[in-house]
């Protein structure tokens, strides 16, 4: 029986949560710095050397500022929404391995009680030893051997939509409402391609358990990106949309909606929304890393013992930070989409592509073709999609909505 270790789990929670908060704080600084560099500015450089103490100053300011609760808001939901944002974003960290992990031992499936007894009779001692060995190794993740791993992450991740909807609605501000509507439509639309993109990976691993998926990649030495490049691209793009990052930040388009769903928020509650968003970023970066980039695995750096633990942690965190940096560079590279383009992309491009990709993966798996066949298929699909968009006749331009002077009785519909 796999044992539960309270001390280990409290320790892991402390480390992981603390580290993620730190990363969030400093990635905000990094965001500002990178933006500045890309725009030939200096960025924050007054608080501490190179502005390194800026996040701490920000944090203190958030706490000490006046906490305004406007008169017109729905108080309960207004107060609850930021908390939902931060809780749902953080709870997903439970199922993400952050350092060295080993998959839990699995008893072969027999389907019957008799079969299980027979197995125990034959392999009882060995089985016991394996389990004890597993119990003795420290797993660098909050909830190890969680079979539903990814399902849990996606489930909690999609709860984030509640924070945005409630925040926008309860603010009773037109900008907030529009922002939250757009954000929720966008999040639910991109959740489908995101979930479907990884189905191929899950199909090959035969498990939703993140430890197992990393272990598989480490064992073969081939990261999933080599086999599923299209899935990776789709997943990463969907993740951008899920996090409401540019070019998908329709929820808070500063030029048209002020701050989007958090227009009416200030102080710590505003900080919570941001914290949730950045935690989401961290979680999704970790996800991409462990799905497609081999998690803690790197060729030639596979040590045992304490050194192994340290190295694996470093590898994992480096990959994640590289991905966060990628987020930030993308932000200043691609301009924001229009809302119809955004929804069209989810429903008319991503979903069919992920479906076809899944079909291709399924065929390869079912007929036992060599895995490497998938790479050209995947890339071919990507190219075909690109070619298709060039060949297709351009969408007719939107006809401008004619201006009608509104009378008090006219129906006004918000878009």
């Amino acid at each position, binding site marked *: 029986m796999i044992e539960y270790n309270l001390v280990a789990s409290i320790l892991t929670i402390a480390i992981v949560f603390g580290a993620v908060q730190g990363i969030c704080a400093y990635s905000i600084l990094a965001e500002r710095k990178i933006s500045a560099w890309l725009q030939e500015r200096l960025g924050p450089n007054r608080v501490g050397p190179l502005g390194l103490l800026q996040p701490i100053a920000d944090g203190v300011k958030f706490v000490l500022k006046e906490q305004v609760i406007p008169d017109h808001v729905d108080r309960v939901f207004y107060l609850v929404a930021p908390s939902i944002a931060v809780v749902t974003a953080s709870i997903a960290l439970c199922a993400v391995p952050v350092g060295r992990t080993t998959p839990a031992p699995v008893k072969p499936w027999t389907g019957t009680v008799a079969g299980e007894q027979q197995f125990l009779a034959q392999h009882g001692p060995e089985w016991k030893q394996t389990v004890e060995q597993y119990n003795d190794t420290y797993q660098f993740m909050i909830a190890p051997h*969680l079979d539903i791993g990814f399902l849990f992450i996606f489930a909690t991740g999609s709860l984030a939509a509640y924070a945005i909807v409630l925040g926008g609605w309860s603010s009773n501000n037109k900008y907030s409402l529009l922002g939250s509507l757009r954000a929720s439509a966008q999040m639910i*639309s991109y959740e489908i391609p995101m979930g479907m993109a990884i189905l191929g990976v899950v199909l090959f691993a*035969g498990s939703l358990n993140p430890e197992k998926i990393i272990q598989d990649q480490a064992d073969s030495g081939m990261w999933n990106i080599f086999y599923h490049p299209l899935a990776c691209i789709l997943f990463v793009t969907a993740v951008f949309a899920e996090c409401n990052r540019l070019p998908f930040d329709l929820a808070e388009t500063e030029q048209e909606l002020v701050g989007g769903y958090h227009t009416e928020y200030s102080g710590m509650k505003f900080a919570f929304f941001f914290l949730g968003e950045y935690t989401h970023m961290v979680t999704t970066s970790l996800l991409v890393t462990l799905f497609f980039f081999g998690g803690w695995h790197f060729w030639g750096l596979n040590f045992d013992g304490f050194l192994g633990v340290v190295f694996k942690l470093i590898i994992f965190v480096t990959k994640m930070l590289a991905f966060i940096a990628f987020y930030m560079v993308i932000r200043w590279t691609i301009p924001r989409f229009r809302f119809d383009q955004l929804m069209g992309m989810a429903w008319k491009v991503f979903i069919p592509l992920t479906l076809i990709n899944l079909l291709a993966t399924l065929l390869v798996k079912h007929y036992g073709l060599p895995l490497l066949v998938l790479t050209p298929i995947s890339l071919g699909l990507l190219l075909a999609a690109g070619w298709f968009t060039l060949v297709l006749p351009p969408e007719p331009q939107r006809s401008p909505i004619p201006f009608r002077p509104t009378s008090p009785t006219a129906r006004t519909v918000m878009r």
Partner: protein
Amino acid sequence: MDFALSTYYPIFLFLAFLILFAIAGTIVPHLVGPQRITPVKQMPYESGMDPIGDARKRYDVKFYLIAILFLVFDVELLFLYPWAVSAYELFSEGALTALKEPIFWEVLVFLATLAVAYLYAWRRGVFKWR
């Protein structure tokens, strides 16, 4: 692996911690920070204009259609996950091998049905965002 509720203990622990964190984070700044209420500060912020009417307006039915469609596809995803996990683990050996082929074809039929629904929605203009 045997199912053990203890797998979920850390999640409950973390959840409890997070909820406490969130509550504290919401309440403490209110106690610490200053409170200077002015009428203008309490108004909805609409770029400096005085707001006209309430924000709880009717909005486009498209959002509703997207939500419905999302439900359809999400439920379909929920069916595909258990399949993806078990199809080639459970049904590749032992007594269940005979079901491997039928399951493959069933999933193809499932995806085809989904594709039909998808194309139908597309043709009916659900994805057309004016």
